[in-house]
């Protein structure tokens, strides 16, 4: 029972941590390279945990991120929903990919996410972002193997599902 509770807290804790690290600023030089943390953590959980991540959870998490970000309510909810839907749909295949293939898949998902964001922003009347805006998915994909292995390792050590 307490093991179950621990794993639930671990799950919620990583998600809150991802939201917080979205808010933590980086030095100016590194700012364009900041990956989209909530997406990476949600992807990890949707691949690893069978029934915890659902579209509703992604929606709620996106709403929370929107409230924190203060940009447009529903923007990140939309993006995270699309991302989690694709990840869940191809979950069985993504899980058995070798790491480099999985990284490529994550890169495609993150790129798709950026395109969605671009569409939303253009519809909202914002100007087109500069070229360095497209760097973030690359960084996210490059970090994915490390994040995946780290989270997996921590999960094994804590012996939680």
């Amino acid at each position: 029972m307490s093991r179950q509770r621990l794993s639930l807290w671990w799950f919620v804790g990583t998600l809150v941590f991802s939201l917080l690290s979205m808010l933590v600023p980086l030095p100016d030089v590194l700012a364009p390279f900041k990956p989209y943390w909530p997406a990476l953590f949600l992807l990890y959980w949707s691949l690893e945990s069978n029934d915890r991540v659902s579209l509703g959870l992604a929606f709620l998490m996106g709403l929370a991120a929107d409230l924190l970000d203060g940009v447009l309510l529903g923007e990140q909810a939309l993006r995270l929903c699309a991302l989690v839907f694709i990840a869940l749909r191809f979950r069985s295949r993504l899980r058995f990919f070798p790491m480099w293939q999985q990284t490529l898949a994550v890169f495609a998902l993150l790129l798709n996410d950026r395109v969605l964001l671009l569409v939303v922003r253009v519809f909202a009347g914002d100007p087109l972002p500069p070229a360095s805006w497209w760097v973030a998915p690359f960084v996210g994909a490059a970090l994915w193997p490390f994040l995946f292995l780290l989270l997996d390792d921590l999960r094994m050590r804590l012996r939680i599902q």
Partner: protein
Amino acid sequence: MALAREDASPLFAGSVAGTLRLIFYLALAMVLMVLDHRNGWMWRIRYAAAAVVEPLYRLAGMPATGMRTLTVAFADRQRLTEQNQRLGEDLLLANAKLNRMAAVAEQNQRLKELLDTQHSLELNVQLARVIGVDLGAYRHRVMLNLGARDGIRPGQPVIDARGVMGQVIEVLPTTSVMMLVTDPNHAVPVVIERTGLRTMAYGSRDGNQLSLPTIPLVADVKVGDRLLTSGLGGRFPPGFPVGEVTAVAPAPTGMFLEAHARPSADLNRSGDVLLLHDQAEPAGPPAPVTPMGPPADLAPVPAGAPAAAASTPAPPAGAAR
């Protein structure tokens, strides 16, 4: 949760229910976005949710503050001494200048009283600190540690020691969000110090500069010209430095000159900023006067209902005066 297990992850074909759920959530998100974009009631939700959101901001701002504290803690003594000396010299210089200006300012004040204008050189400011929170890449927003409880209102100009930084756009109970002058959606009316030419400085989409796209072709603008706020529009008080022109070239349309300027405020590194109060002097035509006429209680009583007519007209008459 257990119910969803059997169709949770089929190897190839997806379930129709999952797609329907996706469509539902996407539609919900779109409805939210449209409503928020049209009505802007997101701020009201955020204001209500501030009790939860603001501690998170403080928490997320802690690494940045920690870094700042660490750099101070581990800065070597010599550098601190040097910095201290430099600041002392700056202060001495500024004080000397101020003393010389004081007489001029007083004279100016007297002359202006004679002329019956209401411009004042005094500053009514409030010191605020920047909270190190990332509100999204390329958003040109900065969070400050004062809010509605400290008397901050949307629209207040924000300056630092070197010039105009931006304005407050959104206020939470104990924090507020400021839009920088470099935001593409921001514009500030400026005047070129050397020639007195009035124009607008917009934020530009590629990073930390201002763009002035509508300068007449015959105007005299050079690289190095300083831009000051002109005070038109009534939001920014006149005379604060905004930037310095770095490039002038004909616009692609060929109808205007387009200049780029570097903002003079220290947008990336400002830790402390000043919020201006009560500076907006109304510019433009005076507010429309309420039409004058004989007081309403002198109006002839309609024949139909004397009792009702006698009691109702009194409040509007008082309000009109």
